[in-house]
């Protein structure tokens, strides 16, 4: 049973909720139309299709588009050896979707990280609090409108932050220069 067949089984079970599976470079991706039903879909994937390992939950900030957030679930079947990617969109006004900790316990910390970095809440999560930054940190750092250098903040007795001196901007390399001197990391203007 390949991942493609299992994705088709998922589509057969849920119909229009699941998009047509897309295969690219050996990865099968499937889109979920409604983020609210993610628990049903993940439960079916775990119990019927054997995706018993949640590899990762990740989130994207589509800054400027609506819906703003995309949450990506990477599933793997340890016995079947199949991998599946599940994507759902969440709008910014809502910024919330149900937790899948009931299906895989490991989703606990992945969802805490998404809450900490992006600000997307998970309904029903047993312990939704910041995991990398500290309680009381006022911003969500991995949003696209948050600067790389950071912003000043202060939580007395816990931690403080200050903007880092970037010295002209992030130092980036460009691929494909004729030698290392052209490629080296330096401040680059968006000429290309």
């Amino acid at each position, binding site marked *: 049973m390949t991942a493609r067949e299992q994705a088709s089984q998922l589509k057969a079970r849920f119909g229009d909720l699941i998009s047509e599976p897309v295969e690219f470079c050996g990865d099968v991706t499937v889109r979920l139309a409604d983020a609210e039903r993610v628990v049903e879909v993940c439960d079916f994937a775990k119990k019927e299709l054997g995706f018993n390992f949640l590899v990762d939950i990740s989130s994207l900030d589509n800054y400027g588009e609506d819906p703003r957030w995309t949450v990506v679930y990477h599933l793997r079947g340890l016995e079947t050896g199949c991998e599946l990617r599940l994507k759902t969109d969440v709008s910014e006004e809502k910024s919330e979707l149900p937790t899948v900790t009931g299906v895989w316990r490991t989703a606990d910390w992945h969802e805490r990280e998404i809450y900490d970095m992006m600000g997307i809440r998970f309904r029903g999560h047993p312990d939704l609090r910041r995991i990398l930054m500290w309680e009381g940190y006022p911003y969500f750092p991995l949003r696209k409108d*948050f600067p790389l250098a*950071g912003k000043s903040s202060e939580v007395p007795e816990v*931690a403080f932050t200050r903007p880092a001196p970037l010295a002209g901007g992030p130092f980036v390399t460009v691929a494909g220069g004729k030698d290392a001197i052209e490629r080296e990391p330096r401040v680059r203007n968006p000429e290309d």
Partner: protein
Amino acid sequence: MQTWSEIGYDSKIEGDVIVTRVDAALNWFRKNSLWPMPMGLACCAIELMAVGASRFDISRFGSEVMRFSPRQSDVMIVAGTVTYKMASVVKRIYDQMAEPKWVIAMGACASTGGMYRSYAVLQGVDRILPVDIYVAGCPPRPEAVLDALMKLQNKVQHEPLLATLKKTAA
């Protein structure tokens, strides 16, 4: 005012007796028994372990034990990236160390924040602690850390010890 002194000794003349100044002697004792408090936070800690291991033995220089207790150590070697979350802990451990104490900032991240110019990394541990020696490198070679220790020993030797003590006592 002469603020440094050397121990000059010629065994044929003096025999087994050394004549020296008190602060030179005290500083010599201090510099040859600098016990590190390893604040090993990231990859530089691995190189710090290498410095403590047999090939680049740090105990040759008197740093016989890496005392993980701040009460029992003299020099804090901050080895690794200090995040803002960890900064208050590092400061608290430094405050718990007994005088006299020194700090070696090992590596790029401890000296200046290193390659991490970002929202989560403290841009140099000298923003919260007084650093005596900075070691460049990512990570620095173990020999570079030993060189830093030797420079610190030189600094300790030339400290006007009794004058400082008199000032604080007054």
